[in-house]
């Protein structure tokens, strides 16, 4: 079947398939919140079997349900935070490129500052400042992921400003807002969307890392970082399935996000395929 499709259709198919899988995981996970908390001591510490493909933990909780719930929690939180980050990047990137030298210098300084503190440390600091918990990790991820995308957008707008069609539009007497809305924004959209989707995996990984370290979601919530940090205590006693399956599921989800982002990039920027 693949052979009948051209490159564009194949890329589109890949994008749709990964999006559908991710959506299924998210929605499925959101519905099994209650099942993830059910404890049943008659089935504790079971190795993976047909009935419980991911095994059960020391409280008899079904790990498959817990993993699904944890992943959907992490993905939704990561996506929301990454979206906030992407809009900060868009606003600051455009501001740096258009509002003159002082604004540009200030924004560049802030970007350098945020990039200078190791990301994990910055997340820890912001999380502590907001009292840990859901708020801490959500704001931490949202406020720290914009610098690289903002740089990209700034460079793009700088280039656009000098391009002939924008210059001509200016000479024709079009207002700045008209140029920004009609000529610049459509040109930025593909890059922005791709940047947004490629921020998701970063945000999800950072969310789970901070939660793993104990600064993120509280231990009652079955977030993926909590599941893995709990499993650490039981590793030495040989309960390998507690860490292996949830982690693999997380890696798969992040890979799917990367694949979706790459496919989106190929669709919006066809020239890059030939590189």
């Amino acid at each position, binding site marked *: 079947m693949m052979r009948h499709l051209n490159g564009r259709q194949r890329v589109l198919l890949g994008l749709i398939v990964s999006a559908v899988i991710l959506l299924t995981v998210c929605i499925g996970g959101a519905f099994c919140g209650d099942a993830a908390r059910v404890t049943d001591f008659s089935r504790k510490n079971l190795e993976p079997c047909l009935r419980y493909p991911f095994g059960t933990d020391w409280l008899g909780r079904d790990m498959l349900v817990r993993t699904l719930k944890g992943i959907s929690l992490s993905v939704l939180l990561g996506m929301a935070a990454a979206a906030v980050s992407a809009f900060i990047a868009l606003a600051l990137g455009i501001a740096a490129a258009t509002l003159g030298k002082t604004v540009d210098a200030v924004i560049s*300084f802030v970007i350098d500052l945020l*990039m200078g503190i190791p*990301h994990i*440390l910055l997340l820890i600091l912001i999380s502590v400042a907001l009292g840990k918990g859901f708020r801490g990790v959500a704001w931490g991820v949202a406020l720290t992921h914009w610098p690289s995308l903002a740089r990209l957008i700034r460079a793009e707008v700088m280039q656009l400003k000098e391009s002939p069609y924008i210059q001509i539009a200016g000479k024709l007497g079009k207002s700045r807002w008209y140029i920004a809305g009609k000529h610049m924004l459509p040109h930025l959209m593909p890059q922005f969307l791709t940047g947004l989707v490629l921020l998701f995996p970063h945000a999800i990984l950072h969310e789970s*890392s901070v939660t793993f370290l*104990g600064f993120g979601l509280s231990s009652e919530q079955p977030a993926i970082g909590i599941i893995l940090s709990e499993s650490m205590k039981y590793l030495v006693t040989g309960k390998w399935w507690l860490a292996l399956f949830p982690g693999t599921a997380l890696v798969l989800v992040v890979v799917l996000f*990367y694949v979706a982002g790459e496919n989106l990039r190929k669709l919006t920027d066809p020239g890059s395929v030939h590189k």
Partner: protein
Amino acid sequence: MEKRLGIQIRNKVIRMVLLVLTTSMLTFILMKASPIDPLQANVGQAALGSMSHEQVEKLEEYWGVGESPVKQYVSWAADFIRGDMGTSLLYRQPVADVIAVKLANSLFLMVTAWILSGILGFFLGVISGMNRGRWIDRLVKGYCLLISSTPTFWLALLLLMVFGVWLKILPVGLSVPIGVEAAGVTFFDRVYHAVLPALTLSITGVSNIALHTREKMIGIMESEYVLFARARGEKGLVLFWHHGLRNALLPAITLHFAAVSEIFGGSVLVEQVFSYPGLGQAAVSAGLGSDMPLLMAITIISALFVFGGNMIADILYGIVDPRIRKGGAA
């Protein structure tokens, strides 16, 4: 020419000092904004309840509750410049002493991982770039995608499971054996305990540099001088040695200097999994326990490392690539 480079470096140093200063302020503000009560976090509600008023006041003074933030920051900064980093509230030792021990442990780990991942990443990138489109290129690309999607702490858990718990050939944690006096710890013990954490860090550090080198290598392979060299009959290793190595190596080195921040971030997670007593672990416990002096010092030191790495990268770019030196478009 020489003078220009000097001015460039001087400007960079000034910028770096400014950035470090702002970093310290930012850290301070964030720590101060925290609603977490250091007394509750470290002494505990039950213990606080049973204490007399004077005792609580004394503790409040110790953890710096209720002082004016600006005054606190200024006195902290004045001490810091004189080399006095204050006293760690958790470890009850001068911060400088705590950091000296932890930093030595962490540096050992990070430098090993930095060098190993650099070499490995470079060669993977070269191999995949020179064999573009073949199975080995796909393999390297797939590996890079997989690694950049893997959370560092989970990779650490996996390696711990395989080598520590299942095969039992490497230790599960810590930087020295338990129950051995400090004098009895040999260099071999240290290396033995650092193998797994360093391996984890090296594996995760590869993907960026490999992909970058691959792009560079593809560019080199498409260039006219390589076409001409091929026409003269050069191929494989000889071709790489004559035309590829130097062109690809320098950008890779500069990129790797700029990647210090990632190695540092990774070490926080890895040290936590292996309970390796390094700077990262200290940062986590300082954050959880609201140990402000320690966390501030760690943030500043890590920022110094990152800015230092970036500065070396910038300067190297300038020295290596005359176009950037002249255009100043770095």
